[in-house]
Structure formats: C-alpha cells, structure tokens
C-alpha cells in the first residue's frame, strides 16, 4: 500500500490495512526505542500512532500537562467537558470529601478535580496527620498545630492516554483505538459493552455507562482536534493548569516548571506520568503534583496490565508442557 495518502484520514487507512491484514505485516514500523523485555506491550515507545499503523504524516502526539500547582479548583474543566461532550449530571450527593462532590472519573465524568486538605509542617513541609478532631480545649489544639499550616491541594484528573494502553490491548471488538494524535479513543458504535477494559485500566479511568452499557472516557476532544481546536477543559481553564499541546513540548515545559518550583523551595513538586520508561511507557496526559500520587488518588507505580502477557503466555505454555509431560509420563510409567 502507498504510505502517502495525505488527503485521507489516517483512520481510514488504518481500518483498510487492518482489513487486508497488511497492517501487521508491513506498515508497523519498528519502535524507535526498543522495549526492554522485548514485547510491544510495555516499555518506552516514541510513537504510538506509528506503532498503531498510521503513516509518517500523522500529526504530533498530543496530550495534557496538568500543573496542579496552579489549579484553583474552579472545576471549569469538569463543566466544559460535560457541556462539550454532552455528558449528563451524575449525582447530587454531598460527599464531605472537602469540595469534591464528583469523587472519581467514570462514564459520565471525564474530568475530575480532587481536593485534598492537609496540614503540613512549615519547617519540613511534611504532612502532619490531622487525625480525629481533638478532644482538648482549643488552646491545646492550636498549640499542637503551631508551626503547621493548612495546605489545600487541587488537581484535575483525566484519562492518561497511556503509551501502552491496556484498555485498548484487551478490547476484543476494536472499539478502543489509538488515534492519529496518539490518544486512546472509544468508538461507541463498535463497543459491545463487554467491560474488559474496565479492570484493565491501571488508573480506574474507563467505565461502563450504567444505562446504555457502553464504555466511556475522555477522548481528548477528538472531535475538536481535527478542526485545530483545543480540548474543552484546557480552553476553559483560567490559570493554565491544564495545558494542551504536542507531548514533547509539554514534557519540556514540565521539566522547566519543575525546576522553577524546586528553585523556589517547593521541593515536594514532582512530575507524574511523564517518564517514558514507567510501567505504561509514559502518559499522554501527565501531571505536576505537590505530594505523593496516592494523596491525589493516583496509583504510585502504574503498570500496563498487559505488560506480563507474553511472559504469562510462556509460563502458561511451560506449565501446559509440564502438565503434558507429567501426564504422558504417568501413562508411560503405567506401561511399565
């Protein structure tokens, strides 16, 4: 097939190549960085779109850099996301989790702002356990926390658009695809609602819609990117906490921001999901955090759940072979 068909949407090309079987045989170029354990399900991968079969002309890999150090918790991202993507209201429950009444990502919530109230020690900038409300007179309580300060962390969570997306790997229908922008998108009309993707996601992002049964999650506003528009959440963010752009640039910008914060003495600042050597090969949507990922409800060391598939297959084969040999030897032994 011709690699140069610029007038055609890469998805058509991909679809055709998959139909004809050319996809696997010819068009998939070698990953720029070899994967460490020799399989294509994990490890660094420079160009997931190319890996998925898009031609060299595919656009840059796009993503989000969410700088939580400037997030003011206005939730404009949540609202803009729901408005643009026509997602319905999904619960009028007061949760008591600070100002977070959204609680988590799901089929009808593709952006979620977490609010974490902490007390930190001013000298060490370490967390102080708030514990249960003190029983003593307030003077004692006040003295107890002298030298400590309240810190309120806010962070807008979203689908990570992993380099190695387990949801996509396990999808039996091909409903989950890698887009030309390197993002991971569910095609609602192809999804049969089997739900395999739900436990596969190491972040607990994707979910089955309780009413229509399909799987849903952030598309990085696939329907805006084609017209050169920025995703709705990043457009609405007033403080540029959510930054959208080519992933390479975002990673660079994030490194600079991290350096800047460290220089300002905010040593607890760290990046999360930007590392191409991590368990998911780096995230297309990554974060600058001010505390451990667990504090924000993020897994500390996410691993693509299909990483060990080849090894598991080997073990399974070995086990099967062992079993076969054992069984065979029983029969052989029986003849004796």
């Amino acid at each position, binding site marked *: 097939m011709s690699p140069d068909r610029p007038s055609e949407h890469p998805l058509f090309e991909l679809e055709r190549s998959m139909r004809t079987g050319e996809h696997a045989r010819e068009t998939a170029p070698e990953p720029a960085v070899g994967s460490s354990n020799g399989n294509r399900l994990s490890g660094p991968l420079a160009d997931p779109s190319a890996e998925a079969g898009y031609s060299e002309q595919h656009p840059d890999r796009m993503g989000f850099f969410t700088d939580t150090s400037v997030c003011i918790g206005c939730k404009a991202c949540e609202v803009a996301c729901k408005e643009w993507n026509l997602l319905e209201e999904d*619960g009028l429950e007061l949760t008591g989790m600070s100002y977070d009444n959204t609680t988590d990502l799901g089929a009808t919530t593709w952006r979620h702002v977490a609010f974490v109230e902490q007390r930190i020690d001013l000298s060490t900038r370490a967390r102080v356990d708030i514990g249960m409300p003190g029983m003593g007179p307030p003077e004692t309580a006040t003295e107890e926390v002298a030298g400590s300060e309240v810190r309120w962390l806010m962070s807008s969570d979203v689908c990570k658009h992993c380099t190695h997306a387990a949801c996509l790997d396990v999808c039996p229908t091909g409903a989950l695809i890698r887009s030309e922008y390197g993002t991971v998108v569910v095609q609602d009309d192809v999804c049969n609602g089997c739900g395999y993707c739900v436990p596969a996601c190491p972040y607990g992002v994707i979910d089955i819609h309780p009413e229509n049964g399909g799987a849903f999650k952030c598309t990085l506003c696939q329907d805006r990117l084609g017209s050169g528009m920025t995703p709705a959440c990043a457009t609405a963010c007033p403080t540029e906490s959510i930054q959208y752009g080519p992933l390479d640039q975002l990673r660079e910008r994030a490194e600079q921001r991290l350096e800047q914060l460290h220089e300002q003495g905010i040593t607890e600042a760290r990046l999360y999901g930007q590392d191409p050597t991590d368990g998911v090969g780096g995230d297309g949507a990554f974060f600058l955090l001010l505390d451990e990922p667990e504090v924000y409800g993020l897994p500390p060391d996410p691993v693509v759940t299909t990483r060990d598939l080849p090894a598991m297959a080997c073990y399974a084969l070995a086990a099967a072979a062992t079993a076969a040999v054992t069984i065979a030897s029983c029969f052989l032994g029986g003849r004796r």
Partner: protein
Amino acid sequence: MAEAHPVGFQWVMEAKRRGAKIIHVDPRFTRTSAMADTFVPLRAGSDIAFLGGLINHVLRGGHYFHEYVAAYTNAATIVDESFADTEDLDGVFSGFTGSGYDETSWYYQGARVNPAAGERDQWHDVFGSPEHDRATSEEESARRAEPETDPSLTHPRCVFQILKRHFARYTPELVEQLCGIDQERFHEVAEALVANSGRERTTAFAYAVGWTHHTVGVQYIRAASILQLLLGNIGRPGGGILALRGHASIQGSTDIPTLFDLLPGYIPMPRAHPNLSLDEFVATNAADKGYWGNIRDYVVSLLKAWWGEYATAENDFRFDHLPRLTGDHGTFQTVIDQIEGRVRGYFVVGENPAVGTANAHQQRMGLANLDWLVVRDLNMIETATFWRNGPEIENGETSPSEIGTEVFFLPAAAHTEKDGTFTNTQRMLQWHHKAVEPLDDQRSDLWFFYHLGLRIKSKLAARRFERDARQRERDRPVLELTWDYPTEGDLAEPSADAVLREINGTDAEGRALSSYTRLRSDGSTRAGCWIYCGVYAGEINRAARREPGEQQSWVAPEWGWSWPANRRILYNRAAADPAGAPWSERKAYVWWDAEQRRWTGHDVPDVDVAKPPDYEPAADAHGPDALRGTDPFIMQGDGLGWLYAPAGLHDGPLPTHYEPQESPLRNTLHATQRNPARRLYHRPENRYQPSGAEPGAEVFPYVFTTFRLTEHHTAGGMSRWLPHLAELAPAMFVELSPELAVERGLRHLGWATVITARGAIEGRVLVTPRIRPLRSNGRTLHQIGIPWHWGPNGLTTGDAANELLNVALDPTVHIMETKAGACDIRPGRRPRGVELHRLIATYRARAGITEHTGGDAPPPDNGLPENGTRPSGTDTVDGGEDES
C-alpha cells in the same frame, strides 16, 4: 478571589508566576488562600483594626512615600479647630448629635471642599436657611477658597499629625487582640507591604464584598485608601485598590445606576429642596476645583439626552422632570414601605431577594403585601414562588389564599441571547454579541423596558384629554422622554448599539462625541452618561474592540474601552513625580515631555495634556483650571488624595474600629461598641441581638460570615437550575473547625441548625481544618462559614443564609452587614412549623431581646430626620407591633 472571580484570578496567578508575593487575608481558608504565599486568617469584622495596624506601622516607622504623600495627598492640609477625634471622645467624632453627625467640624480650616462621591448636597452651607438670599451666596461662591496648609506636616491640626494620633494605638498587640492575627504574621505582612512599595515597586489591593458588607463598609475601603496613599500606590502601574464586583456588570449598574441617590455618571440625585433650580443644584453640588466643577455640562447633556427638543435653556432643560429625593428610598426602606402598605407594585429584575437579601423573611413580608409584582429571571426563582412554597407557607405562618400579590413572571433572555456591554472591575466596557436567539417568550431586559415604555407612553397619550391639568403635568416627563431606538428582527429588539451611542452622546450636528471635555451646558450636546463619553468616538463601538494582547502595547488600550477616556489607570498623573518625571524607570507610566510641552506615556494621561507640571492657577480660576499642575486627583475638590475625608461620609472623616452590629466581643478599643451613625430598623421581623458585654450576648457566642462558592452564582438563580453546576455543590452546608465540632457535638456530614434572632436554618456540617479557632480579646473564638446560594427551588435546594441576617446598614451607602454576625449552632435539623417559631422565641427570650436591643440608647422621642435631607443614623424606623 479564586472562589468568586476565578477568571480574573488568572492575572493574580500570572503575577505570581512573575514573582509577586500573594497575601490573602480572610476569616476562612479558601481556594484563594490555597494559592497565596501567605494566608492571614482574621476575625470577621476586624479589618479596620488590621489595616489601622498597617497604617500605624507605616507612619511610625517612617515607611511612607514622603514626596508622594507631601505632594499628592492632603497630609499638609489643616483641619478646622473644632474637630475632635474618636481618640479624644472615646469612639465618636466631634459633631455627634446622638443619632448621626453634624459634619461641619470635620471641614478643612478656611474652606469647604466638596467630595467626589458620597454626600455632596451643600444646601445648608451654600444657602444656610431657606430664607437666606440665594443670589448673594452665588456671588460669594465666585471666590475660590483654598484651605490652609502646612507643607512641613508638623502643624498639630494638619491631616498628617491627626492621622498619626488617630492610629497610634493600632499596634501589633492591638491587632493580635482584636483580629486574632499573631504578631509574627502581622510583621510579615507589614514588612512585605513596605518592601514592595515606593519608587521602584507597587502593591495592589483587591477586595470584594468581604470588605464592603459591614456597618462600617465604606470606612474599610477608606482605611485601604489611606494605606495605599501613604505608600504611594495609587495612580501607578501595579498599584491601586481593585473592587472585585459582585456580578457581571455591577460596576456598569453603578455607573449608570440602579441606585436611588445617583444619576448616570455619579451625578447626585437632586434632593427635594423647595423650588430647586438647575443653577441652585449646580451651586450646591459642584466642586470649586476639578472636573466636578463642570457638573453643569454633564447634567445639561444628560437632560438633553433624556428630553431632547423639550429641554431648552428657557425651561431649565427640564430639570424639573427629574425626581427629587425626600429621604431614604433604598431597597430596605422600600421593603419596609411595602410591609407598611406604602408601596403597591414592584419590579424585580435579575435579582432574587426572597432568598438573596439580608433578612429574607422581611423581604418576603414585603412581597406578600403588594398589589402586583413583576419578576424577570432566567429561572422560576423563589421571589416568584414565595407565595406558594416560601418558608412562611411551609411553617404555616400564612397561606397562598392570604397573599394578595399578583405575580407576573416574565422569562428573561441570557447574556448569550442579546447584545450589550459588561462593565467590570477595571471600569472596562466589553461588548458581548448575541450568539443565539432567545426561545419562546424570553426577552432581553432592553426589549422589555423599551416596549413597556412605548406602551405606557401610548396609553398616557391616548388618555390625555381624560386627564386633568395636574395629571397632564405629571405625565409630561414620560411623554416628552426621548424613546426612539431603532429595532431589529422579528422580535423588534431595540438596538443595543444605538443605546450605547446615546449614552456616549452627540454634538449639535448629531455626531458621536469623542470625549467628556466636549460636553457643554448650553444644550448643544447630549450624553446619557458623561463618563462613558468617548466609547462611541468616531462612530465606532469601542467596547467591541478585541485586539489580541500580543498585537498591542502592554497597557492593551485596544481591548474594550475603559471610562473615562479609555484611561486604564485612574489618576495616573501620580505615576510621575511633581516635576513630571517617572518615579522610576521600572514604574514609568505617564510623564511630561518637556520638548513637546505635553503629557505622554503608555496610557491616556489623567491630566490636561497641555498643562505643565509647574502650572499654578489664578485666584479666580474654577473647575479644571483651578487644578495645579501637580494635582493628580482631578475629581477631588482639592485635587488631592484624601488621607482624611473632610466631607462625603456620614460616619467620620477617618476609619475607626467598631465591632459589627452583632458581635460576641466587646470593643476594647474604646467605649463605643458599634458605629454610632449606622442605620438601624427596630422592627418585629428585624430584632437585633445583644453584643459584647451586654447581657444575653453569650446566647450567640459564635461569629459567622456568609460566603460564595465558585460552583454557584449569588442567590442561585443562574446555577441551582443547571445540572452541571448543581452536582458540583449539591447541598447547603456550613463550614466549621474540628474544635467547634467537638464543642457542640457536630458530626461531619450530619445536620446542624444555625440560629440568630431572626431565624434558624439547617445545613450539612463540613468539618475542616481550613477553619481554625482564633484567639481574640483573650478568648477562643470560633467562626462559622455559611454559603448563601440556596433556597427552596431548583435542582439543589436548601435553607437560605439570609434568614439569619439582620438589616443594619452603613450610613453612607446603605449596605447591609452580611459578612460578620453572631449566632449559635446546634446539631440536628431545624424544627418545622410552629416549633421553629418557638425555637427562635426561646432564643430571643434567653438573650432578653426587646425592641431596643442592639441600639446604643433608648430611641429618641422624635426620630424623624430633618427635612429628610440627612440620614437618620440610629434613628429608629419602627413600624409594626412587637411580636407576642
């Protein structure tokens, strides 16, 4: 600011990114505090003590910007010898009459100066008694009086020395005692402020209604103004005091006011002096010096815009057509008048007083006693449904069959469904274009009022011959009103563009005017709002300009249009030194170009561009000509920034710490507990609580402050009906500290009932370390945060915080005190029906509340204000019977 103005807060984050230190002062730790470098928690209602402490720090340490203060403020002006300070009189200023102030002792020595805002009517000063010969007074006023000054700032009665004495007791210790701010943190703020002010650096203050909604609200802002003037932070880039307004275009609706005592462009509404002529109005309201000296140009142009050809020099340009003030016609007095049966009809447009105004019960009592009520809103708000599901119906106090009010609910178009402008904090008009047509019967407010006007005019015209002479005279202002806007589309929508052009004004040939300096008092010009003159200069809608920032200078003059004259920083003459040179290269903004002999710079200079810095006015000069080349504050009657306000305010020339109307704490600064000039309304539905040392104050031991969430908009009319907002903050709650939760047995997410003398509301409990008890006046003080977005209608419902609030007002601007109150809190839901009544009655009885509680003294025998020309201070407006 991050909570209620998240979009504007992006610029604070931008400043932080560039190295600015952000300090947040608030009773509650909010989303703003989370972003700040330093958070300063303080007791709600104690800000004047805090700001006073900073003023004292600046004065005592000699940290003020000496050249700026000496040249641009009234520091050197000598005050009349009859003036006595609160420090001399234990909490009151000279001139206290027992209910309000006679302000004459606050004047400068040798001259009466008219303020740029606030109370300006000088009838008594100009004409004395009504029998006084008015012509003589006008001749006298031809000589411009200059107050005495002492440039060395050492005269004991000069403003600078008065200021020093006034604030001498506002020490860090006092701040700690009154505000609960520890001294270390106070010093951190004071030093940051001083280090970041001067020639090379400036500091900006941003505030919202947390500063204004107090019985001393205006004085809060005065305190900030004094501090900023002392530090040289006014009229300079990066400085200023920024009022973050409460809604979109609230600035616009003070510029072209919905306020009873102002005409467009801050022209005072005339008072009902007998046979007041235009000349007399000008004589009593104009300033000798500065641009208010041209008030006649502004008034005549306004009258010409309104009454066109009917307004001529012979008939005083129809000055008689303007209504006259006979007293307080503010919103709270109007509602009392409704309860008393003196007001029969009511328009409520884009507001939800049934849950959104202080003492909401009182508001609903007024609504329930009308003949007719028109409500225009986006949603079926509580103000339109109070008669069937208001708390009084729920509690069985009244029933729909007992309420005679005929309610007309008219659906309104949203801002996306109409053209128009927003004018916000920075005085900038920004045009918004209609994106979609309104659905069904939804109409813009412009459509509504235009077509209503047409119908009223045609009805009056048709019945002209049935009307007697007196009635015909009364109809004239309406019949002669210019009402000729072009309409467009199927809905006959009036052109907002044409309205803006009318506001801008036109010259004798009908061409759009370019500047307010072109306005004339001979009737040749028209302008609907003189300060907006220029927004349509060159026949271009300048509010609609959206030149991207990167394609213009950093001042961005091509984005929208700022009044006046597209000037982005007011009083920017102060950005240059007296000789006209920038104070520093870093802070250069406008300056005198000696070669060109004119003012120039990055912004439109706020000075006559041809007036050299060394200009000295002639002795008989008036108006702008009387301003010296060094006077930056061109709207002030003396051209100077007022460290001391000799006029305009009803509660004193200097800010003084008073406790809020209701406070658990005694005022330890002086014997006067509360602002002695505040306005009270002792009425059965508006009982006040005892405060401080008064017996019964301990019944309401906690301070509460109302607040807004980012997720909701004001009284909820624009957010509680929207699923995507309702789900983000889905229930009424109250915020409190773990310590208070323990003290009162409150459980996180459980219910709590908050009680005051007016009402009791319930909400879910949010226990949070963000709220911390303070040490104030030697005791532990708990504060409770109560959002005020909820009501019985919409997707998320709950009790309204305004059931708790009293109506006690700032005497100058009639604002209520929503930001500092006293309450009790207990676990569990509030009782219903008659039990609720019983609960409140029990609390009132325990606190010994009577019709006199909360006043400073028994009510005077004669509570009626003199001529209705002065506010009545603590005079009581007692209407109904006491509750049983």
